[in-house]
């Protein structure tokens, strides 16, 4: 027995003594079973929040943007803050599924499905804001380069806002295709297990006629790789373009070349935090602790720690450059950001984004589920404030002191924000009950079944 040298292998990514069938059953369980009380409670709350937000949006469109707290000086506040926040959150999914796929990080398999779902749902929330923040939503199609009969009337390709339109729509479509491709074998699995004819019909539609032939699998692998290649630059480009909204402007505090990398790091940072938030709950509720393990959480925490530190460096660089530039408007913008009337927002941002992830240096803390959950929430609060700080504190005191003023949200601003959180959870909760939340086809590829079985037999652990 001891003659055989066993290399120190990686910790297993699936714990518990799972067979292939166990995985199928575990993944299909939330779909096939009945929703519990907790789910219904959460869903009701989310739905109510969503409806409230919907009401607030309808009220805004019916009455005018004036129902928000904006003014002549601060033309964007919660709307674009929420937009950037949601887009940022949306970054984790693609990073996990595409970048980690290319880097052959197998641990992504346990979480990529939900992370991608989160991406799509949060990009949906994000996409709402540039639309509803328009004064005349009914003319929103003007931002699309549609052929028209007005001669040279065309969109302005100089405008970063237009780039946003393309960036977000590309991101959403690529993510959606990528996600769906991964879902095909899993939908097929649900289809094959379905007993009720209606369910069977639906899942067979969703699985696009997956048969599980070798050719199917080969194509599946190829498409995944191609899409991963396509999606990887998007991870960097989308938030870079979002940051251009600010970086290409002339407003001190916005006009900063550091924005693209800083925004991307921030986006990954907040996205991973949101993934943590969701998965920590889901693994518990849907009994998926075997697939989303402590190890997953730990690895996520490490990414959070690193990106958090990058963001921290960016903050400090900004302050340094403001001082070093010698430009009075720039200097004042950052002085005002840190010590002006919104100092509390800056402090919140700093402590949530720069200091709180530093706890993750401790192994004990980063493997603690409860602590990870708390930090994930803190990070998302911090990242919301980061965007608020950038947008509002730069605008509210810019060049001419005569126009300086303040911003304070109205109940409609708050309603819409809460509404998107509600909408997000409505989608996510529905997803958790109807979609295979773990990429079971992929996960099965990393189940060490034969070796483990043999060892058990050898060691005489008969059941």
């Amino acid at each position, binding site marked *: 027995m001891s003659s055989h040298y066993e290399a120190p292998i990686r910790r297993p990514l699936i714990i518990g003594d799972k067979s292939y069938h166990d995985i199928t059953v575990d993944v299909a369980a939330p779909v096939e079973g009945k929703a519990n009380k907790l789910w219904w409670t959460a869903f009701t709350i989310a739905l109510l929040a969503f409806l409230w937000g919907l009401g607030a949006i309808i009220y805004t469109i019916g009455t005018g943007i*004036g129902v928000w707290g904006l003014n*002549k000086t601060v033309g964007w506040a919660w709307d674009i803050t929420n937009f950037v926040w949601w887009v940022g959150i949306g970054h984790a999914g693609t990073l996990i599924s595409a970048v980690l796929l290319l880097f052959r990080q197998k641990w992504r398999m346990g979480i990529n499905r939900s992370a991608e779902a989160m991406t799509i749902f949060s990009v949906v929330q994000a996409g709402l804001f540039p639309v509803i923040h328009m004064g005349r939503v009914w003319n929103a199609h003007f931002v699309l380069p549609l052929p028209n009969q007005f001669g040279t009337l065309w969109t302005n390709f*100089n405008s970063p806002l237009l780039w946003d339109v393309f960036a977000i729509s590309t991101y959403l479509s690529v993510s959606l295709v990528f996600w769906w491709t991964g879902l095909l074998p899993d939908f097929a699995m649900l289809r094959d297990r379905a007993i009720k004819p209606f369910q069977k019909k639906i899942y067979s539609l969703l699985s696009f006629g997956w048969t599980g032939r070798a050719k199917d699998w080969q194509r599946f692998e190829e498409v995944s790789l191609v899409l991963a290649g396509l999606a990887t630059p998007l991870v960097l480009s989308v938030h870079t373009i979002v940051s251009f909204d600010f970086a290409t402007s002339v407003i001190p505090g916005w006009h900063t070349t550091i924005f693209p990398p800083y925004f991307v790091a921030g986006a990954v940072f907040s996205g991973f935090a949101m993934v943590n938030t969701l998965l920590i709950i889901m693994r518990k509720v849907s009994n998926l602790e075997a697939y989303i393990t402590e190890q997953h959480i730990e690895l996520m925490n490490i990414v959070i720690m690193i990106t958090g530190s990058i963001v921290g460096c960016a903050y400090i660089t900004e302050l340094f450059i403001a001082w070093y530039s010698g430009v009075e408007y720039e200097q004042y913008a950052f002085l005002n950001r840190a010590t002006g009337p919104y100092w509390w927002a800056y402090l919140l941002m700093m402590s949530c984004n720069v200091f709180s992830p530093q706890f993750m240096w401790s192994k004990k803390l980063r493997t603690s589920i409860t602590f990870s959950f708390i930090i994930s929430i803190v990070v998302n609060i911090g990242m919301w404030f980061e965007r608020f700080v950038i947008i509002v504190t730069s*605008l509210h005191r810019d060049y001419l002191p005569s126009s300086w003023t303040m*911003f304070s949200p109205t109940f409609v601003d708050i309603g819409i924000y809460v509404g998107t959180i509600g909408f997000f959870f409505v989608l996510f909760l529905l997803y958790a009950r109807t979609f295979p939340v773990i990429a079971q086809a992929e996960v099965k590829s990393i189940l060490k079944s034969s070796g483990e079985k043999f060892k058990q037999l050898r060691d005489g652990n008969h059941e």
Partner: protein
Amino acid sequence: MASNKKYWKSVEELKETSPIVDTLKHNEFVDEIPTDEFLADKETLETSSTTRRDFLKYVGFTTAAASLAACEGPVVKTIPYVIKPDDIIPGVADYYATTMVDGFDFANILVKVREGRPIKIEPNKEANGSTNARVQASVLSLYDSLRLKAPKANGSEISWEEADKQIVAKLNELKEANSPIVVLTNTCASPSTKKLINKLGDTYGNVQHVIYDAVSESAALDAFETMYGTRALPDYNLEKAAVIVSIGADFLADWQGGGFDVGYAKGRIPKNGKMSHHIQFESNMTLTGANADKRVMMKPSAQISTLLKIYQAIVKGESTELPEAVKNAVNQLKKAGSKAVVLTGIQDKNAQLLALAINKALNSEVIDVNAMRNIRHGNDAKVSQLIADMNAGKIGAIIINNANPVYTLPNAKEFVEGLSKVKLSVAFTMQDNETANAVQFALATPHYLESWGDAVIKKGHYSLIQPTIQPLFKTRQFQDALLVWTGSNTSYYDFIKESWKSNVLDGNKSWNQALHDGIYVKETTGTVEAVDVDTDAAAKALSEVKGSDFELTLYTKVSLGDGQMANNPWLQEMPDPITRASWDNYITMSKADAEKLGVVNIHVANGALNGSYVEVTVNGVKEVLPVIIQPGQAKGSLGLALGYGRKQGLKEEMQTGKNAYQFYKNFQNNQFDVTVKLVSGEHEFACVQLQNTLMGRGDIVKETTLDTFNNTALDPKETWNKVAVVSLDHKEVEATKVDLWDSFDRSIGHHFNLSIDLNACTGCGACVIACHAENNVPVVGKREIRVSRDMHWLRIDRYYSHEEDFAGDVELKENSSGVIGYKETMSSLEDPSENPSVVFQPVMCQHCNHAPCETVCPVAATSHGRQGQNHMAYNRCVGTRYCANNCPYKVRRFNWFNYPENDEFDYYMNDDLGKMVLNPDVTIRSRGVMEKCSLCMQMTQATILKAKKEGRPVNTDEFEVACSNACSTGAMVFGDVNNENDTVTELVKDKRAYHLLEHVGTKPNVVYQVKVRNIQEA
């Protein structure tokens, strides 16, 4: 009712027995439709390509198409002329010269009339007319929906005939009883009206004419009368002044009827190295004080003693020990001699006498005692006597014209009691105001734009008032009524024409020409000589005035004035040039006093300003008022604006502020028996500017002193008009020369520029209202202004210095060291000095040649025009507000709500009457759209088209925009820089010229002229 008419259906009916006609009587078609045959033919049916399904499709489509075609937007009908009046061409404006006279403002104006509707007031420049904000806004009062629309007797409507009958009967009764009839008017300066009042006297015997000005200049009139024998006001030509010393005279606003800003500004632009030096002693921070080179704050009682000291030094030649500021003023006055002038706003005959005496002693050229101004005639003593007589039952009838004593009198209660003892009380009024509701007969008068009239604003300057629109309501002029009551059949028009022909024109000018010009200037002869007045006695009497801990100075705002136009939303929304607060009046208080009393001004979460309330007691009259802590307010003094707090005849939104006339005891603007105490509660102000200082940003408002300016050894670009430099290829290059883009050839066609001279701009705000009127800028109301959503396309920023002057601020900032030091300096710079230096800067869209707004608009709704303007295509705008965020000047205004036709914004754009003022050349913006200054593109295009039609190039200086047209001081000059003769071409090259925030690289088409201050210490 059934009709028996028969209609021809066809010629066949001519024949008596036509088979077709017979057949048609019974059947719809002559030939039978072979329906049955068709349906029976199964074969054909089946071979037909049109199946039943197709048929249903067609039916479905046609039904849907027909119903869709029936859907259309609501149709608003325009009614064409059946017979087009010869003088109205739709789309072409007519201008009429007339005169604005309302007892408070007098101005020679041009009225722009479109399709029969007066829509804008412009100064009649050929008559040297100038307009202030109120004159500009007066056109909106014509379309006031709450005007008195018909005569009323005891509250119910009555016909004019009936009213005449009843009033004449009463008047005759009174005539028999020889009961006195009093005509109470405000200053009308109209010789014809005076004649008619005399005629009334001839008819009814005992008629007295009492003139009552709500805001009195009686003391100045009394003093002038005593010294020069005529009850009038002297004229001051401040252009000639080298030194102006003003003691509490807000002469750039409404002092002695206003209008002095034109001459003042001319003397303030450095010419040949010279400009006037202006010293102001005052308690409130006034518009005038804000423009002064040296401003000394002092309580009214101290102003009196200052005047006395100057009097003693100049007139008596006494050389006693004087306080520094007074000594300086005296020395300056002595040095300037006849080029100096002393003005005072202290409403005390003795003080006014002393000022006249000083000017006489200086032999001042500035004061012109011969060119007498007739724009204030009120007589306080007579008014007080009238009230006493009314209460004693001595007055038979009172006929009030264009005055609202029930609101404006400090002792209004007595007046109302008196009214009840008068047998006949009649008020001619345009508004359903307090007085209209207190008298027996409230007779509706037309607006001045619907009236005939005349006025002698200045001696020899005869002005005509002509209607520019048919009366909108059942109104009749006071003068027409007088003609009827005196049994005359002529109309007032004929009466004026007759009296002008015989008394005024002297055959030098035809009536039509005079009417066309709006003014006839008659050579005046005869000079007035000063009589010896015992000014020492006046000085002695004045020295007995006792000050107190708190002294209140009542003033009028450049917006609301005496309060006649309180129902005018443009004026209500116009920010006060000093406090920048709108929709309110308030106590202004010094910071020291505020701290002592525990009064605070705070900014709430959305930045809006809140202030404590105080209870002010003046001569026993109590009122709770909000406080704005005013930099430059003399310690121990308080300020409060008149004209607010009206309740009747006003929309609810316009019932703003508190009535300060209740404190206006004895018509004294300075009240000495004042106590203040803090009371609980917080007032919500609507202030458009929340940051008061310039934060040491010297490149926003560039300033220099006259000495530096005159120093030819200095290169302006290196010293006082520094251009920002940037590093390009490691070389320092002027920021204005660096360019990212290839610029197109701008030398072709017109290229518009606007120059704003910070030396000439007094901050009066006439341009703000002119812009409102020209560009249909919506009024948004107090609530929206409070949350920083004003819609003004043109604003006048006002900055205070933190140090003694702005240069001090820059120095303080530059000397700060370290992060902590910098932080502390910057937060201290947020607070204005106790007596700050003040600067006004009008800011509108800068029409940047490299506009940051243009690059960021996703739909290209804002883009650059070849003529230099930054355009806004409202139809294309989707309202992302990105442009506004990226505008360094923050001049873009967003339509947060639908402002027109919205009950939430019940101002002038919500009713059919108010909408008549809208300029048809400018689109009304819908909600969700960004808007901003267009450099009055509709005006420049109209000028171009006019020239084109006349087949000529555009004349030199022919281009105008609303603000430059309204600017009486010449601070704003607009023109085409591609025309080398245009004034503006010279100005943009001036060594004083600079662009706002030029380091951003926006290359604006609006250019500012560096402010030069004449700081002299004698």
